[in-house]
């Protein structure tokens, strides 16, 4: 596409589709505002850009100039960022159209998008179920065919888990591959902007555009943007590791069947398959729920009502302002994690929790290096232990909710790239399988994903 009239048509069509998908509550941008913004952008977009005219929705924890950035929180209701995220600026420079902001768990804390202050998003296949989270709005919009791709963000699986639930592709790049500038911080050492797409190619080409160095983010690697690999004919030469800890005895048999089917396909495609062990995997969720809340407790300290965002009652003195603003502005899950994080960083507990967790994190990363050092190119695992669960099912039990990220948090802790692609259906609901790759070798990972995507019976019951 490089014709302005086509871009305009694309913009209007996306706006129309969004209106029809309104019931999903996946977008936080009112249809009228979105239509206007899309048309304005289509008129301004550079026809030479590689994503010219492509509508891309953006998770609401990524700063945009066109739309408010609320992180799904009351504490930022109506907040407009005076600057835009580097990833968003790169998308626009490539001619993409920012197709509104997507619903998410508040400050990306959650696995169901039920923890949004603006109501839960619905699973596009079954409105009684959740689309996953925290990038549930992005996943639902892509799955419903509203946009070909959307930006999400990951701290512990928040792109791959909803991608698995909604039957779309989700990529979490290597930590440092994409600038975090303008991504509202949750767990800074884990956070990374990711992409949800209809296909590996849609997700990959968006990732390629947003990747690369950024002087504004000290944790972003000084590297050229990711170059997309060619679609391979086979998986000849690939050694795929199957980490046994991701296939416990009590794994859902349907999930196991779906994965076994994929493993057979690997062999048919010419790949070598090898069982490996990542022995520290059982500690990953506990480690994650120390590191991420610790960083969050500090990252979210700035929301105090003093400078921006709404103030709640009782601003007589500054302490009261903090108490009411933070007490009423944050939802229960965010408050729970701030408390948890404050606790693990407190003097007297730091060594027992935060320092220990950092040590365990290093061991988890070492597990992966060991596997790769032994000749494994990529690891394959289920993305989630189950397909999409019912809304409300895990709300009363935070630990059950946390465990839905059991297969995804490891890649975040180790900073590795990972991709979830649909590998089958369980009682009509999609399920994803993931590749975990080596740091900054997204191209290899994408090559394998391309190969698998071509042959996997993604819409067939496992």
């Amino acid at each position, binding site marked *: 596409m490089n014709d302005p009239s086509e871009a305009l048509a694309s913009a209007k069509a996306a706006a129309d589709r969004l209106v029809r998908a309104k019931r999903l509550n996946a977008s936080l941008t009112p249809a009228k505002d979105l239509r206007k913004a899309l048309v304005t952008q289509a008129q301004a977009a550079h026809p030479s850009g590689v994503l010219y005219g492509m509508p891309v929705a953006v998770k609401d924890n*990524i*700063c945009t100039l066109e739309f408010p*950035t609320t*992180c799904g929180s009351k504490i*930022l209701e109506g*907040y407009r*960022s*005076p*600057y835009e*995220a580097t990833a968003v600026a790169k998308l626009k420079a490539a001619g993409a159209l920012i197709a509104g902001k997507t619903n998410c768990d508040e400050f990306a804390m959650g696995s169901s998008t039920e923890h949004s202050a603006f109501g839960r998003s619905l699973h596009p296949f079954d409105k009684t179920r959740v689309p996953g989270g925290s990038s549930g709005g992005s996943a639902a919009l892509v799955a419903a065919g509203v946009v070909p791709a959307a930006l999400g963000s990951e701290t512990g699986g928040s792109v791959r888990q909803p991608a698995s639930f909604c039957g779309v592709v989700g990529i979490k790049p290597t930590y440092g591959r994409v600038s*975090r*500038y*303008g*991504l*509202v*911080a949750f*767990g*800074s*050492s884990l956070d990374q902007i990711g992409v949800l797409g209809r296909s590996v190619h849609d997700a990959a080409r968006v990732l390629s555009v947003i990747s690369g160095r950024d*002087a*504004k*983010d*000290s*944790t972003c690697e000084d590297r050229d943007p990711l170059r997309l690999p060619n679609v391979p004919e086979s998986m000849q030469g690939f050694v795929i590791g199957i980490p046994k800890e991701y296939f416990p005895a009590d794994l859902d048999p349907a999930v196991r069947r779906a994965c076994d089917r994929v493993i057979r396909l690997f062999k048919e495609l010419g790949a070598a398959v090898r069982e490996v062990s990542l022995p520290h995997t059982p500690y990953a969720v506990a480690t994650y729920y120390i590191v991420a809340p*610790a*960083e969050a*407790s*500090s990252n*979210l*300290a*700035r929301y*105090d009502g*003093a*400078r*921006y965002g709404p103030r709640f009652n009782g601003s007589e003195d*500054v*302490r009261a302002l*903090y108490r009411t603003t933070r007490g009423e502005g944050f939802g229960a899950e965010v408050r729970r994690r701030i408390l948890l994080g*404050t606790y693990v*960083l*407190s*003097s007297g507990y*730091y060594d027992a929790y*935060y320092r220990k967790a950092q040590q365990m994190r290093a061991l988890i990363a070492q597990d992966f290096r060991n596997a790769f050092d032994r000749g494994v190119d990529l690891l394959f695992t289920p993305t989630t232990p189950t397909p999409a669960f019912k809304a409300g099912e895990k709300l009363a039990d935070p630990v059950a909710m946390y465990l839905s990220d059991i297969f995804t948090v490891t890649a975040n802790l180790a900073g590795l790239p990972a991709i979830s692609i649909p590998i089958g259906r369980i009682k009509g609901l999609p399920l994803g399988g993931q590749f975990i790759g080596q740091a900054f070798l997204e191209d290899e990972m994408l090559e394998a994903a391309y190969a698998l995507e071509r042959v996997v019976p993604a819409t067939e019951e496992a």
Partner: protein
Amino acid sequence: MGGGGGAASWETVIGLETHVQLRTVSKMFCGCSTAFGAPPNTNVCPVCLGLPGALPVANERALQLAVRAALGLGCTVHQRSVLARKNYFYPDLPKGYQISQFEQPLATDGSLSFLSPERGVAMVTIQRLHVEEDAGKSLHDRFPKQTAIDLNRCGVPLIEIVTGPDLRSPQEARAYLQTLKQVLEYTDISDCDMEKGSLRVDANVSVRRVGQTALGTKTEVKNINSFAYVEKALTVERDRQIALLEGGGTVEQQTLLYDAKANAVRPQRAKEGSHDYRYFPDPDLPPLVLKEEFIAEQQTQLPELPAKKRERFAEKYALSVTDAAVLTAERAVADYYEAVVHAGSEADAKMAANWVMTEVLADAKEHGDGLRVPPGALANLIGLVRGGTLSHQAAKRVFSEVAEHGGEPRNVAEALGLIQVADTGVVGRWVSEVLGAHPTEVERYRKGEIKLLQFFVGQVMKVSRGKADPKLAQKVLEEKLAA
């Protein structure tokens, strides 16, 4: 504790934490200006405002200066140090944390020698030196019943310099600070202007019985806004602690604010909860890894430090230690002095020192616009005095004239008619005139009152309007009076 015995039986133990603003154009973690005095909240951006999603990037220039300061204070600079978050809530701290250093600071284990008023040359250990960002400013008097926040200072680069408990009196604390300031000004690391807040001091104070080795309970004194107040605040706090202990009480570990108007300390309003800053490594900033070459490069950028320069001046220019100390107190003055010596003759070094310490510094103090007479001009002026062309008195007039209006000293002296007359005939006429006008004094001289010679010389200078060469005048007078 009983006893008593007054202040003399107590020993004061002081350690200082000094925050120094680094002389950079931009802030520690963003590109905003550090200029002082801008309208409130104009030198700000998403990063220093702590807006959602913004990220810090360390300022390399600030790191250079911090490393230079550390080297100047004899510290070990660590090739790997860690930036950490210090978490606390305050309205002028937009992120809810300050980026500082905790477990792994930039530099440790330095020392600074200074001249103690009581102990002579003494040594202070520098326990650590770390980099951090400044917070904003809360203005409580701008609007009635409201607090205004100015975030211009937010993110300004600072170093914190922490001494060991090595200072033994409020006077020593002040002397150490003056020496520290001198080093930081010399190395061009900071302007050390306390009024602008670019140098701030917190003090830890305790007292113990003379002879005891264990430290007493300390208090922290804050809000000390000048060097003079350092001495006053610490004296007040020391006396308070001694009085408490002598009265049988105990010192409570607490933070005190100094009230300069009342010359008293009072406890800081207790912040909610305890001070648990929950330090942890800042995940937005990789560890500071400094290459060996980078550190070496900063070492080469260090100028000669004041103590070294003082010793060199005393030896090379045969000056007293006191004179050398005056001349090296400020780098600009020291550089000026050396320029004068180099432009003239090293033989005149002592004379040049006198000129700089008297006329030059007096002129600078009076006019406040620096060292106005170029070093070359002063060297020439000194040459004219040494060569007998100008009297010292006349040279002072020339100096003022050059300072005020510029010009070459010889030309100025000629224009003012101040060139000394060394012509025996001309001086002889002035002598005759003077002797003729004072017959009584001539009579007394001849009767043995030879101290009147100076009176005659003075009269000759007066008659010649300062132009007569006083030595020649004396010689001619002696001859004529003897005749």
